[in-house]
């Protein structure tokens, strides 16, 4: 029995043993914050003091890029750092932050510009940021996609939270539709959804977290690497899909995978806070595990994972816990009554291929 998700619960669920920790040789990982939030080093130290006893870990961030303010710590900033350093334990971690920005700067764009100006960067970046696709210009999204390609071709893995509004909803008078978000819908990043324990107070199998973002892009076509997986899903659940007018089956489908996103413990402003939820929790959890795998690859003089999706989809679900139960939220109207897509065997637009079974994922990605 447990009273919420802690590093020990995560490591138990995803089969990370005490020896599954990084070694500090030329491996590194990063979280990026655009909410003008800060993480406090003292919070991280307290968090590791409270929850880090069962695994070797670092208790401070290696580098802060940008200006760390002195304001109150932000819950999301604390969450990101504390959990990427819990699964990606003992791995040098950077924090990209930007509170000192100019009033006309766009924080996310500023981070993208930075990536084009730093030759020495961490190999894994987890980012919890998204905007409705329909609020952004096509020119902007296409260019940001190119920036993602520039990072992927350098061997950098970019993981984005899939969002916390389920399929989303665009209210258009009589006829609503689901509302995909970007960069989660970019074909050139790995998008992470959210799950819950079937029994919230036990380490059991996982079901969907109803907030887990997912669906189909209205802007980007479906990339080759996921065509057969998505086709399989649409065939499996054909009879129970939402009305076709709500979504666009030719679009890039997301998320690609998932992890627990429900009821985390976080230390922020020196206070342990329970019941913190969102895909901004599941994303650093997956990021930390990819960093561990990168570390083992680098030890064997293998290249880093880089843009993961083509390889992830070739696993066809091997090495991941498939999530087949539950749905996520969407429009509250007569037609769909708040229900978006539902999980199904293999890939689905709520949890992707499922959640990482670390030792098997390591074996599959180490060859």
């Amino acid at each position: 029995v447990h009273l919420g998700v802690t590093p020990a619960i995560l490591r138990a669920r995803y089969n990370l043993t005490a020896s599954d920790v990084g070694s500090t040789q030329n491996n590194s990982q990063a979280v990026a914050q655009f909410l003008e939030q800060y993480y406090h080093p003292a919070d991280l130290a307290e968090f590791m003091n409270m929850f880090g006893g069962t695994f070797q870990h670092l208790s401070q961030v290696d580098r802060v890029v940008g200006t760390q303010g002195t304001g109150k710590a932000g819950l999301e900033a604390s969450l990101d750092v504390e959990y990427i350093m819990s699964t990606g334990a003992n791995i040098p971690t950077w924090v990209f932050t930007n509170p000192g920005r100019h009033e006309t700067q766009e924080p996310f764009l500023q981070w993208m510009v930075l990536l084009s100006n730093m030759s020495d960067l961490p190999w894994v970046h987890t980012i919890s940021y998204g905007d409705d696709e329909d609020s952004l210009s096509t020119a902007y999204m296409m260019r940001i996609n190119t920036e993602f390609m520039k990072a992927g071709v350098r061997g950098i893995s970019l993981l984005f939270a899939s969002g916390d509004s389920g399929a989303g909803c665009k209210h258009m008078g009589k006829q609503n539709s689901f509302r995909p978000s970007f960069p989660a819908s970019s074909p050139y990043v790995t998008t992470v959804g959210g799950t819950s324990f079937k029994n919230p107070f036990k380490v059991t199998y996982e079901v969907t977290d109803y907030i887990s973002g997912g669906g189909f892009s209205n802007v980007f076509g479906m990339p080759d690497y996921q065509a057969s997986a998505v086709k399989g899903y649409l065939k499996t659940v054909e009879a129970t899909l939402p009305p076709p007018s709500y979504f666009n089956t030719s679009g890039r489908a997301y998320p690609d995978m998932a992890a627990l996103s429900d009821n985390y413990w976080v230390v922020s402003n020196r206070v342990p806070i329970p019941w913190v939820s969102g895909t901004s929790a599941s994303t650093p959890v997956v990021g930390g595990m990819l960093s561990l795998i990168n570390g083992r690859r680098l030890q064997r003089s293998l290249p880093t994972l880089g843009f993961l999706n083509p390889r992830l989809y070739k696993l066809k679900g091997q090495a991941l816990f498939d999530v087949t139960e539950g749905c996520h939220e969407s429009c509250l109207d007569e037609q769909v009554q708040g229900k978006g897509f539902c999980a199904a065997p293999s890939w689905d637009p709520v949890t992707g291929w499922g959640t990482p079974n670390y030792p098997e994922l390591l074996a599959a990605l180490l060859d």
Partner: protein
Amino acid sequence: SGYLEYDQDVLIPQDWTRVGRVDPTEELELTFALKQQNVHLLEEKLKLVSDPDSAQYGKHLSLEEVASLVRPSELTQKVVRHWLHSHGITNCLTVRTQDFLQCKMTAEIAETLLPGSRFHRYVRDGHSIVRSSAPYSVYDDVHQHLDFVGGLHRLPPKGQDLSKKPQQSQAG
């Protein structure tokens, strides 16, 4: 004149309060995304280095190699810089890949450079930002050399309310 971002939402969400027009002499910083070269080659390269069945799997590029692949053409760089200089804008920083320029200028010059733009200050939760309340355009001869100009429209995201999950929806 061409609208680079004709489909960008320029409405300012209600949780931002408009303080007023920005003083014409106030300094702004805008980001110019220059048109890159070889984007299709970049995409091909990404597929090759990311596909485990490809002979080039894992053969990643350095930042310098990426820069030499996507660097904007001489013409693009010349046209954009001339356009900026002709408006007295010289305080610019570029990046290693030379496909972004970050320039400081007064609000008055920015509104001349980008016809249609009108800069206002907005505040939310103690944070203040400056954005344009109207779409911007650029002259035709520059239009083909830019992807977009950052700093006029998109707003900083609002954090998810992580500590309280939204009410469990009926279907969920």
